């Protein structure tokens, strides 16, 4: 997996980062965001149900209120971080050709940041001024 044992420096062995140079960071962050997503998703669903059938003015007012905006921003950030890692794992599992894999991993990162930026921007706008 990582070549003959004598090729590895003691530092590399201690760090345990492996060939991806990131160790278990992705694994850990996927669990961290998964745990965060449980209460945040439940809260987001409750907020969504509360807002169903209301007109835009009422919806905008509620979405822009501090508690709702903060909860939804946390939900968006945690979700976007979670789905970025998840999609990267899927890409790495099924795409084996280097250039297309890199392109897709990059596109995935851009997509997640863009979706997150749009949603957070909307919440900030609803909070601080239309």
């Amino acid at each position, binding site marked *: 997996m990582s070549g003959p044992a004598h090729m590895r420096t003691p530092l590399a062995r201690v760090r345990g980062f492996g060939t991806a140079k990131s160790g278990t960071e992705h694994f850990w962050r996927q*669990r961290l965001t*998964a*745990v965060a*997503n*449980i209460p945040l*998703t439940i809260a*987001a*669903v409750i907020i*969504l*149900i509360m807002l*169903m*059938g209301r*007109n*835009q*003015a009422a*919806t*905008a007012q509620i*979405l822009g209120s501090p508690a709702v905006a903060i909860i*939804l921003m946390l939900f*968006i950030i945690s*979700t*976007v971080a979670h*789905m970025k890692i*998840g*999609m990267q794992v*899927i890409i790495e599992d099924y795409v084996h050709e280097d250039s297309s894999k890199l392109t897709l991993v990059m596109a995935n990162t851009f997509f997640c940041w863009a*979706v997150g930026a*749009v*949603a957070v*921007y*909307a*919440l900030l*706008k*609803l909070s601080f001024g*239309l």
Partner: protein
Amino acid sequence: MADTRSLERRTPAERPLSPHLQIYKPTLTMMMSIVHRITGGALYFGTLLVAWWLIAATSPTAYARFQWFAGSWIGRLILFGYTWALIHHLLGGVRHLIWDTGRGFGPSEREWLVAANLIGSIAITVLLWIFVLLTMGVS
């Protein structure tokens, strides 16, 4: 060089390969593992709906367009699917977190967990939609 080539030729073509999906009898835990990944992939694009909803809320015309979509039959179908995927992936995530602690791997426990995941996600989705449609006065 010549040595390696002759070595290559002598290597039998039928080396043992890592067995993949088609070689196993489908089991519920295996199908639910696949469904967890599929629902995750669907939710990835479903997040676009959340972003659209939030950005639409900043303007009356944009919100009217979103509400028209959400009320159309295709919109409702997509939202129903999104609800189920969300709840299924959430419960599946809890199952995986339980498994991460090393618990729940026994023959009956794991079957019970995946069954609860599937039945729970369907039941919660249907109940949520009945509740929402009733409170909204079914239109």
